[in-house]
């Protein structure tokens, strides 16, 4: 019997209106339709979601860990790039 694995999918769920989809995990499925069903069963049994995205893991281009220095470190000493010096009125809520 052919024991070949199904392709890997990454699952993103949006928990509430106004929030972005968040990565929640991954799963295996033979195609997008099954991946969606599996995502529903594996990740949304406890009323977590309003919307699900499934993305073939293959389609994601990731940065490599060895590039960390070049990619991120130059920003470390530049606190002024963070908008932390503004007061945000309470009524705005989460940004």
């Amino acid at each position, binding site marked *: *019997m*052919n024991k070949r694995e*199904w392709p890997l999918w990454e699952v993103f769920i949006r928990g509430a209106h106004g929030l972005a989809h968040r990565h929640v995990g991954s*799963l*295996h*499925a*033979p195609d997008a*339709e*099954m991946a969606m*069903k*599996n995502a*529903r*069963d*594996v990740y949304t*049994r406890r009323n977590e979601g309003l919307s699900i995205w499934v993305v073939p893991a293959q389609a994601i281009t990731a940065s490599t860990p060895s590039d960390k220095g070049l990619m991120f470190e130059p920003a470390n000493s530049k606190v002024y790039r963070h908008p932390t010096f503004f007061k945000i009125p309470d009524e705005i809520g989460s940004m």
Partner: protein
Amino acid sequence: MSDTHALQSYVLRLADNALILGQQVSAWCGHAPALEEDIAFANTALDLIGQATLWLTYASELDAQGRSADDLAFLRDERQFSNILLVEQPNGDFGKSLMRQFIFDAAHFPYLQGLSHSNDARISEIATKSVKEVAYHLERSSDLIIRLGGGTKDSHNYMQRALNDLWRFSSEIFMPDALELSMTEQGIAPDLANIETKFTRHIHMVFERAGLTLPESSYMHNGGKIGIHSENMGPLLAEMQYLQRSFPGVQW
């Protein structure tokens, strides 16, 4: 038979179908062929046991002897269970369990749709809550039947064998006896002929897309509704009721 007793007998049929199938499907937990499928099937079992709990709770409220929902699940004997024969058929291989699930879902979904219009408020309420879960069960099992029926030669053979084996249990749910006719007449139970039409339309569509053919013999078994069960029912109940039978009243 008093009205309350008749109503309870009818509610117990609904309860026992969900309970026995839930018990059987739960045995796949940790054993299904893929992790995702394992979780999905266990979710189905949980949904069914949840529905059984709702029906049994209602049946216990109607019980003249004041038995609880747990008493009804764990302390009735084989002849007092009124589930259809389909749900007590052995799990067999995964293909057979899926086929059993699909045939049941295809009947269960229109049945619950019908029950959601019951003029018994409690029945209508439970059916309305359950029908959403069962809509998903049916979508999932239909999809898997189409995929596996039209998959490899191996998967096709497994599904065709399962269909050949289980088809003779597919009509019992639609064969009304005096109790069900009276329930339908009172507007408590749905019209079974109407549900069978919906069932037939759906399964024909799915089997055609799956490349599966119905067995030639159209002989249909029945008896489960009045407590006449097949040989698998005894061992099934022995396992399900073991704890309450060995340690009466135990709680955890």
